[in-house]
């Protein structure tokens, strides 16, 4: 797509035509962009697809079952158990593979809920304004004044550590950040003439939110989705590591590190593998987001 090469210093009005043109031949344009991407972004994209592949085909790739006890505890690396076994004799490699499925899907679901909630309320605030905007704004201020990990710990004390609670609690706190961003971006769009025209035409509120404003704030929201995903992923991993997140016997990278941490004292790197799996995924997503931000914000300085 040729217009991608021009400096995008244009105002919002021109970005809208860009967005419209971008939709045509979106796939070939995307492929073109990917081929021009810096090596870090390419690496990130390849890794993300590799993780997705492993997550989808986990049962076919794993040599043993997810919670199947197959050997003695803490068996060393061998032909039978490629990465050894864990503290109750489950195959480490199989659990690593199944954890990809559990951890990634849970984090993705949480981020999705946070985005639905946050962006919808943010759009509502920006479009309607008035006391709804004020009320939501103050509520978010208070929620953001408390460190979210601490608040999450408080909520988990009350409701116990089951998966649904975990997802909803983390989604709620992440929704506050999404709300802030989407409101801030949407406020600039709401004052533009075409929104005013839509209002005068008598379009209903959902139409204005979804069809007039939302398409124009998608690029920053998409980048934010990546960032929020890594943040949610790290939060869930930290909670699981603390023994308060995803509960056994479900395989999860965070809790696997905790369960096998004693092996570190004997110089064994096996407990670091799940942690490395987390790090590799979050690094990859960050690389891609970094590239995407440069693309959409029109920065040309690097």
């Amino acid at each position: 797509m040729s217009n991608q090469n021009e400096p995008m210093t244009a105002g919002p009005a021109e970005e809208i035509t860009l967005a419209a043109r971008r939709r045509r031949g979106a796939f070939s344009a995307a492929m073109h962009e990917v081929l021009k991407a810096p090596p870090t972004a390419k690496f990130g994209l390849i890794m993300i697809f590799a993780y997705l592949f492993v997550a989808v085909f986990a049962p076919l790739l794993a040599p043993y079952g997810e919670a199947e006890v197959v050997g003695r505890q803490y068996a060393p690396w061998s032909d039978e158990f490629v990465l050894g076994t864990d503290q109750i004799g489950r195959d480490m490699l199989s659990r690593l593979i199944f954890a990809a499925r559990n951890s990634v899907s849970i984090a993705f679901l949480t981020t999705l809920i946070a985005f639905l909630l946050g962006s919808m309320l943010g759009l509502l605030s920006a479009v309607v304004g008035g006391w709804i905007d004020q009320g939501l704004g103050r509520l978010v201020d208070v929620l953001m004044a408390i460190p979210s990990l601490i608040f999450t710990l408080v909520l988990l004390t009350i409701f116990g550590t089951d998966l649904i609670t975990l997802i909803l609690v983390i989604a709620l706190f992440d929704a506050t950040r999404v709300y802030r961003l989407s409101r801030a971006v949407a406020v600039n769009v709401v004052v533009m003439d075409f929104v005013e025209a839509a209002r005068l035409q008598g379009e209903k509120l959902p139409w204005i939110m979804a069809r007039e404003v939302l398409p124009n704030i998608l690029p920053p929201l998409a980048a934010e989705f990546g960032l929020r995903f890594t943040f949610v992923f790290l939060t869930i991993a930290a909670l699981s590591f603390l023994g308060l997140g995803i509960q056994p016997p479900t395989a999860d990278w965070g809790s696997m590190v905790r369960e096998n941490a004693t092996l570190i004292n004997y110089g064994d790197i096996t407990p670091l593998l799940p942690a490395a799996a987390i790090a590799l995924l979050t690094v990859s997503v960050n690389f891609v987001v970094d590239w995407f931000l440069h693309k959409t914000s029109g920065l040309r300085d690097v």
Partner: protein
Amino acid sequence: MHPVFRTCLQRLALGIATLWVVSVIVFSMFELLPGNFAQAVLGQAATPEIVENFNKRAGLDRPFLERYGTWLTGAVQGDFGLTFGSLTSAGTQARTVASVIMPRLENTLFLAAAAAACSVPLALGLGLLAALYRNSIFDRVVNAATLTSISFPEFFVGYILMLFLAVQHPWFYATASVDSTTSFWEHLARIGLPVIGLTLVIVAHMMRMTRAAIINLLASPFIEMARLKGMPPSRVIWHHALPNAWAPIATVVALNLAYLVVGVVVVEVVFNYPGVGQLMVDAVQSRDIPVVQACAIIFATVYILLNLSADIIGIATNPRLLHPR
């Protein structure tokens, strides 16, 4: 009254109000507890008399507002009531939350202060250099390295350090176990690895934010004007950029020290350091509510105070407010 002073007072009042709202939220959330909480804590074997006795000793039989009043007046004086842990086992001496938290709070503050002392100068220096020499090799290397380290979970950094610096090469203590008899220098030596771990995590965030803030500042028209006047670069930096840089730098430092509050929880667990973070995790697992409440309030207070001080430094050093026309 000087406008700066008035604005600062307003922010202070706002901070205290936020803290009060937080205390209401933290306290009232425990009203959401499902059903008979005492029964759940004490287990199915507990007889109704034991449950009733527990409720009475924990004060759960009194109305909400009365309990909140008692708790709040106690909390501002550092008294957070009795731990549930000491109430559930009949006959044992009741322990106050304050007596459990105080020694651990000292440990956590010690760790946080050491980590801050290492990370703040390092991050500001690196961020400033990266901003001044933008797009150089140095900038790119630092940028990639910090982006990578931001993406690492804290426990990953912690265990890597433990593996390489304590197990394979025994230069540091693998676990940071200290007690009240540990001397100051011994204490400092034992928290070597946790401090390095926290520093690595925080420096990345702080350095990136410093770089962005400085770049943002250097792009503003009055800097360009000063340059175009033919002013020497050092004078541009010291007399034009720096007075306006305090606010963003203070914000960056305070935000990241607030991040330290959260990072400390995981790092304490990794290195088995007896601090407030570890205590809170244990309390959440055993559902010892008074302890969780106290820890949450302490963490939230530190967090709010740090953000507040960033605000106030930003206002107090703003040249436009200091010299009103």
